Every structure is written in structure tokens, then in C-alpha cells.
């Protein structure tokens, strides 16, 4: 086990895992192999992947996928195929409207005045003229929706994402986004109302509907990806990171490609061939 070492995050992961017997079994000896010492390229790659708990994460991913196949996917498929698109669109709008207070709070916390105003106006318009949030009238008026969450707010405040984490049930994450998710859930006015008035089932139902709805929305994409990818875990990890970076930049950063020459090689000039110049 000499070449297997965990860094501080892994130690934290083990500490947390000690809370649950199952989890701690998964964590045993479950650290990614370190790159050979002195190999700069391999070390850079290890840092870019940033997944010191990879073996444990893969195990959790496998369990999540089994649960997905057995429960969530069939339900999501039945929902998508059985419920007319018009009804699903109303549910989509209602879920977005329920989430608007959290989006607004995070807009404010990020100092995004215009976006906060957009979210607030959307909430007022859609809750009233949109019949309790069932219709996104505001979007028709040019006030497009956007997503925000506390994980993004922490990122804007300068917190790093930390290592990649595969959460049981919740899927791809990292310490920053996991904390953000918990904070959003606890602060959410609807959830607070539900808990304070002993209607926990309302908060749970909402989470269940949102989960099935979201799963149904990405069904085609994930089915394709599962079928065609060589390493589904690695593909999901990379896609999650890129999507989060895009969310944090509010979709304006373009792609990460423009930032790193290492990942976006020069397009050769002039000679008309497809040959890449320089190193890949």
C-alpha cells in the first residue's frame, strides 16, 4: 500500500465516513494511486482530475446506478412518456417558481443586482399572472430564468471546489457544492414552512417530484452517454465540473477552452491540412 496515499480531504472523508458503517467500509484503502514522483505531466494530470477518493467514489457511483436503473429511471421514463409535454412544462414552471426565493437570495449574496431584480420580478409575475407559478409568463416578457445556488455563491466568494465527491443518491458533487445543497435546502422558505407547520411530507414530495422531473429531462442524454462512453464515471465527472464552472460564470465564460492553451491547441494556419502543430 506504499504508493497509495490520501491527502487531507481524504482524511476528512474518512472522518465523515466513520459516522456510517457502510460508508467506512467503502472508504477502506480507497484512495487513488498517486502519480510517479517527479513525473510533472502525470502530477499535473492528477491535480486536474482532482479525485483522490476515486475508488470509493466509483463504488458509490455503481450503487447509485443500480438504484437509478431499479427505481428512478423506470419512474422517470413512465412520467416522461405518460404525462403530456404541456403538463410537464407546467410542473417545470412550478418547480422553478418554488425555487425562485433561493435563486433570489443567491443572486443577492453574489452582488448580482440586475439578476436579483429579474428573479424577484419573475417570482411576482409568475406567482400572480402565472397562476401560482404554473406558467412562466415572465419569460414571455423577456425575463428569462436562470439558476443559482449556494454552491455557486461560495465559488463567487472565492471558495475552491475541493476534491470530486460522489454522494450517495445525490450523485456528482464536491465539498463546496454539497454544503451549498444542504444550505439551500435548509434556507428554502417552502421547506421551512413545511417543517415549521409539521408538513414534512410537503417538502419530501416536492423533492421527489423535482427529482423525477429532472431525471426525465436528462433521460435521453444520459441514456446516450451510458451507451456510448468508454468510461461513464470519468465522463460524468468531467461533465459535472464543466457544467458547474459554466454555471458559476453564468454561462458567460464561454468554454474553458479559451482559458487553457493546454486543453485547446492551436489551430494550424495556412497549410490546409488537419495536422496539429506543436504538442497536443
Amino acid at each position, binding site marked *: 500500500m506504499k504508493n497509495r496515499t490520501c491527502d487531507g480531504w481524504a482524511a476528512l472523508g474518512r472522518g465523515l465516513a466513520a459516522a456510517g458503517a457502510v460508508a467506512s467500509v467503502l472508504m477502506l484503502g480507497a484512495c487513488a494511486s498517486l502519480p510517479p514522483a517527479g513525473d510533472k505531466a502525470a502530477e499535473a494530470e492528477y491535480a486536474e482530475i482532482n479525485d483522490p477518493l476515486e475508488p470509493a467514489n466509483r463504488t458509490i457511483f455503481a450503487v447509485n446506478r443500480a438504484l437509478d436503473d431499479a427505481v428512478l429511471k423506470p419512474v422517470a421514463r413512465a412520467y416522461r412518456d405518460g404525462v403530456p409535454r404541456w403538463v410537464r*412544462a407546467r*410542473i417545470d414552471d412550478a418547480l422553478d417558481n418554488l425555487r425562485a426565493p433561493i435563486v433570489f437570495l443567491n443572486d443577492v449574496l453574489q452582488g448580482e443586482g440586475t439578476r436579483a431584480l429579474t428573479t424577484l420580478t419573475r417570482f411576482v409575475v409568475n406567482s400572480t399572472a402565472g397562476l401560482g407559478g404554473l406558467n412562466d409568463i415572465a419569460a414571455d416578457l423577456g425575463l428569462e430564468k436562470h439558476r443559482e445556488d449556494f454552491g455557486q455563491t461560495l465559488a463567487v466568494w472565492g471558495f475552491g471546489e475541493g476534491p470530486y465527491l460522489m454522494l450517495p443518491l445525490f450523485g456528482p458533487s464536491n465539498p463546496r457544492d454539497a454544503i451549498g445543497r444542504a444550505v439551500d435546502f435548509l434556507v428554502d422558505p417552502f421547506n421551512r414552512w413545511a417543517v415549521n407547520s409539521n408538513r414534512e411530507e410537503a417538502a419530501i414530495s416536492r423533492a421527489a417530484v423535482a427529482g423525477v*422531473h429532472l431525471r426525465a*429531462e436528462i433521460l435521453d442524454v444520459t441514456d446516450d452517454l451510458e451507451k456510448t462512453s468508454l468510461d461513464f464515471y470519468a465522463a460524468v465527472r*468531467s461533465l459535472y465540473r464543466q457544467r458547474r464552472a459554466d454555471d458559476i460564470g453564468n454561462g458567460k465564460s464561454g*468554454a474553458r477552452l479559451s482559458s487553457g492553451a493546454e486543453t485547446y491547441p492551436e489551430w494550424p494556419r495556412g497549410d490546409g491540412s488537419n495536422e*496539429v502543430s506543436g504538442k497536443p
Partner: protein
Amino acid sequence: MRMFRFLIPVVATLALAVQAAAATPLEDGAEKFLSSLADDAIQSLTGPEKAREDRVKEFRRLFQDRFAVQFIGQWTLGRSWRQASETERKEYLVLFENLMIATYIDRFQNYAGEALKIVKAVADDDNRVTVHTDITRPNAADTKPVRVLWRVGKNETSYKVLDVVVEGASMSYTLQQEFGSIVRQTGSVAGLLEELRKKTAALEAAAKTN
């Protein structure tokens, strides 16, 4: 109206900004290239009466013609490209192209109802352009279109697609991460080639039984 004279430089700057925002020939060309690519893809790939072999043939031709296949392939192999032997590189490029065909041929069929709208084209430098498009999905509950960026490169003779970025996620970079993971697990480029062979064979077999 002397007091408004201070506005003159402001207005002049704005006028310049507007001029600068007008599309350059490079950007215009990229837009035209992309809209013709979308038209050709729909025309040649989505006919319901077309046999699958014919669609595969047409898609391969389109892919080779409009995408910088070798450039993308070399990029997605990442740092392993340097370690690969000449024979391995050659086989890799063939397998990579086959994987792309097998991956996207049926996606085009499934996504035939989706409409692509070109939003704008922005030059990255003097021979690369990012074309911003919105794609609406006919069966999604969320009516907000998907934001897809096309990285397009121009050489002397033509434009080629270098990368496709869906909601901030680069398809080439994702593949590079995936291939890198396989190389690390199998320990060699040869291991990746073996996985690529298996995957494309499996996808072909699955397509034939459908």
C-alpha cells in the same frame, strides 16, 4: 447646447463599438458554414426511408469533410499522443472516427425534430470563430433552448468544426478526460485501442439488432 459637448467623445466611442461589433468576413463565413452544415446534416441523415448503411456512409463523408477529424482525435488522446507509436496513432485515428460515427449517427436520427438557431459568431483570433447557437428540444418540458457553441477554425481552403460545447461542456475535452482515464486504468495506449475496438463493435451490433 454647449453643455452636452462632453458627450461627443462618448458618442464617437459608441459608434466605434457598434462598428467593431458588426460581423467580420471571418465570422460571416463561419455562420454560413454552420448553417449549411446543419442543413446538410438534416437533409442527408434524417430521411426515414434511408437505409442505415447509407446514412452511415453519408455521415462519415460529412464528418470527414466538415470536422477537423485528425485535429480533434489528436487532442482527445491528450498527452498519450506523444507516447503512442506511429502504428498506434494511425489505428487510434481510425477507431476514433468510427466511435464518433457510431455515437452520433443515431443521435442525429433521434434529435431530428430539434431546431438550430444561430445566435451570433464571435472571432476568437484571426483564424478561429465561436458560433453561438440555440437548440430547442421538442419533447423537453423546459422550453428554454440548449446553448451550444461551435468552435470553428478556418484554413486557406475551408472551415472545419474543432469542438462542440454544450451548455459549457466541451465534447472534445470530455472525451480527452475519458480516454485519459482508460489509459491510466489499462496502463497503455494499446489498452485504450482495445476498449475503443470493443465499444465500436458493441455499438454496431446494437444498431443492427434494432
